[in-house]
C-alpha cells in the first residue's frame, strides 16, 4: 500500500453475527461516532447495538404520497370542472363526481410514494457511490458473501492508530487492517 495515501480508518473482520453484535456494542460504548458495520444482510438488533434510532425514511415517503394525491386531485378536477367538462349519461361534473376520481388519486399516491421511497433511499444512503475507500481492502469483497466487518474511520475524534487497533483486537476483530483512501 502506498505510504503517501491518506488513512481512511481501521477495518476488522468478525466470525459471526453474534460476535459482530457484541463487538458493535463495545465500540458504541467506547464512544465512537464515525464508524460502521458491514454485513451481507441486515442483522436484526444491530441498529440498537450501534446506537442508531429508527430510520426516518418514512417521512419523505409521506410527503411524496401527499404530493401524489394532490397532483391527482388537480389533474382530474381542473379539466373536468373547468377546461373540458365531459357530461356522460347526465352525470354531474362538479365536486359530486369526486368518487369517480378515487382510483386515479389512489394510483398516483402510490406511484409518487414509491418514487419518493427510492429517491429518499438513494439520497440517505448516499448512493450511487461507485468509489469508496473500503473497496481498497481486499478482504472486504467478502462482505457480500459471508464477511462481517467493522470499520472505524480516522475522522472520528477518538481515532488513534495504536489504540483503535488494540480496541478492535480486544473486541474479537480478526485481520485488523489499516484502510487507505
Amino acid at each position: 500500500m502506498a505510504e503517501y495515501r491518506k488513512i481512511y480508518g481501521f477495518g476488522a473482520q468478525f466470525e459471526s453475527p453474534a460476535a459482530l453484535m457484541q463487538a458493535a456494542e463495545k465500540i458504541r460504548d467506547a464512544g465512537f461516532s464515525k464508524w460502521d458495520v458491514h454485513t451481507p444482510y441486515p442483522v436484526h438488533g444491530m441498529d440498537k447495538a450501534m446506537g442508531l434510532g429508527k430510520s426516518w425514511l418514512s417521512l419523505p415517503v409521506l410527503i411524496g404520497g401527499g404530493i401524489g394525491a394532490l397532483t391527482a386531485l388537480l389533474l382530474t378536477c381542473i379539466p373536468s370542472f373547468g377546461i373540458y367538462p365531459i357530461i356522460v349519461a347526465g352525470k354531474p361534473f362538479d365536486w359530486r363526481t369526486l368518487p369517480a376520481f378515487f382510483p386515479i388519486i389512489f394510483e398516483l399516491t402510490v406511484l409518487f410514494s414509491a418514487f419518493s421511497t427510492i429517491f429518499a433511499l438513494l439520497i440517505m444512503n448516499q448512493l450511487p457511490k461507485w468509489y469508496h475507500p473500503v473497496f481498497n481492502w481486499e478482504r472486504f469483497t467478502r462482505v457480500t458473501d459471508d464477511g462481517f466487518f467493522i470499520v472505524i474511520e480516522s475522522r472520528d475524534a477518538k481515532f488513534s492508530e495504536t489504540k483503535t487497533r488494540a480496541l478492535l483486537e480486544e473486541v474479537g476483530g480478526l485481520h485488523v487492517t489499516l484502510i487507505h483512501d
Partner: protein
Amino acid sequence: MAESAVTLTTPPELVRVPLVTNDRKHTWITDKVSNIVEARTPLWWWAAFLPCSLIAFIGLLCIGYQISNGVGTWGENKTVGWAWDITNFVFWIGIGHAGTLISAILFLTRQKWRTSINRAAEAMTLFAVVCAGIFPGIHVGRVWMAWFLAPIPNANGIWPNFRSPLLWDVFAVSTYFTVSVLFWYTGLVPDLATLRDRAKSRVSKFLYGIFALGWRGSNRQWRHYEMAYLLLAGLSTPLVLSVHSVVSFDFATSIVPGWHTTIFPPYFVAGAIFGGFAMVLTILLPARLLYPQLDDLVTRQHVDKMAKIILLTGTIVGYAYLTELFMAYYGANKFEFFTFFSARMGINNPGWYAWAYYVMMFCNVISPQLFWIKSMRTNYVAVIIVCMCVNVGMWFERFVIIVTSLAQDFLPSSWHHYSPSWVEIWTFIGTFGIFLSLFLLFMRFLPMICMFEVKLVTPEADPHNHAKKDQEGQH
C-alpha cells in the same frame, strides 16, 4: 370430575421444518446461486431460448401485420368488439399478481418461506405485465394514437374522461409496472453487489458494478434499506389489490349482462392470485429440475405451500362462480339469467361457448381440489398437471366472461359468433415467446434467488445463536 381425567400428557415437541435444508452455510448459498450466472451458458439454455425467441419474433411480426393492415385482421366483429386481445390482457396482468403477492403481502405477513422464490416471481410479474401491456396498445387499432390514453388534451384539445374505468386502468397498470420495477430493483441491489465482488471479467465487473450502485452492506445503509423495503411492500399490497379491481371495473361498470356485477373486484383478485401462483410453479419446477443445486433452497415445503394457496384461491374462485350463478337465478333479470344459463351453460341455446365454460369449471374449480391430499401437493408431476390446468382454466375464464357476454347480449338480431383469426392466435402464442425469452434472459444474467434474504433465514444468521457458533469454532 374424576381427578385422573386432569392428567395431561406433554405433546411431542413440534420441530419447524428448516427453510434451507441440509444446514447450508452462507458461502454455499452465494456459490450455488451465483454459479448459475457465472458458469458457461448451458446447452439447454440455447435449446430453450432459440425457439422461444423465434416464437416471440413471429408474435412481433403478427403485431406488425395487424398494425399495418388494421384490426380487421382479427376475428372481431360488430358484436364482439373485445375478444382475444382483452382476454390476453387480463390473463397476463393476472399472472403478474402472484409475484407481487409473494414479494409484498407475504413479506408483511412475515412468511419467511417467500425468500427463495420472491425474486423469480417478481421477475415473472414484470414480464407478464410487459406481455399484458401489448394488447390494449394494439387493440386501439391506430397505435400511433395510443397517446390519447395519456392524461393530456389530445390533438383536438379534448381531454380524456377521468371518470372512465378505461382511463383508471391506464393509471393502475402503468403504476403497477413502475412500482414493480422499483421494488424488484431495490431487492436486486445487494445481490448485484455480490456478483460484482465475484466477477472475474472486466465487463461483468463493470456492468454489475454500475447497477450495484456501490452497495457496501453497511448497517447505516441497511437501516434505511429495510425501511424502504417495508414501505414498498406496504405500498404494493393495496396496489396489487387495486390493479385487478380496476381491471374488473372495465367490465363491472358497464351494463352488459354477465359483466354488470359487484362481485367482480374480489373475484378477479382471487382469480389473479390463483392463476399467478400456477404460473410461478409452471416455471419454477422446470427451473428447479434444470438446476438441481437449488434443491436445498426451493424445497418441497415451498411447493406444498404454493399448492395450498392455489387450493385456497381456486376455491374462492369456485365460490364466486357459484355466487354468480345464484345471483343470475335469484336476481330476476332475464338477460342475466340468459347469459349464465343459456349462453354460458348451454341450456336451451346453441351454446357456442358452453364447452369453454365447462373447461373453465373443470380446470379452475375441480382440478385444484386434488391439493387437499398432501401427497399430491408434494408430487411434482401432479402439481405441474394441476398448474397447467389452472393456466388453461384462467385463460378460459376471461374468454368466457368477455366473449359469451358480448356474442349474445340483449338483441338476438345482433348476436354474432366469434372465432379468432390466425393473426390473433399467433400474437397470443408470441407473447408466450416474449415472456419465456425474457425469463430465460433473467435466469442467465441475474441471480434468480434472493441470496441475502435466504441467508437471513438460515440459523447461522441468528445473532443470538451463540452456542452453535462456539461449537463450530472448535472444529
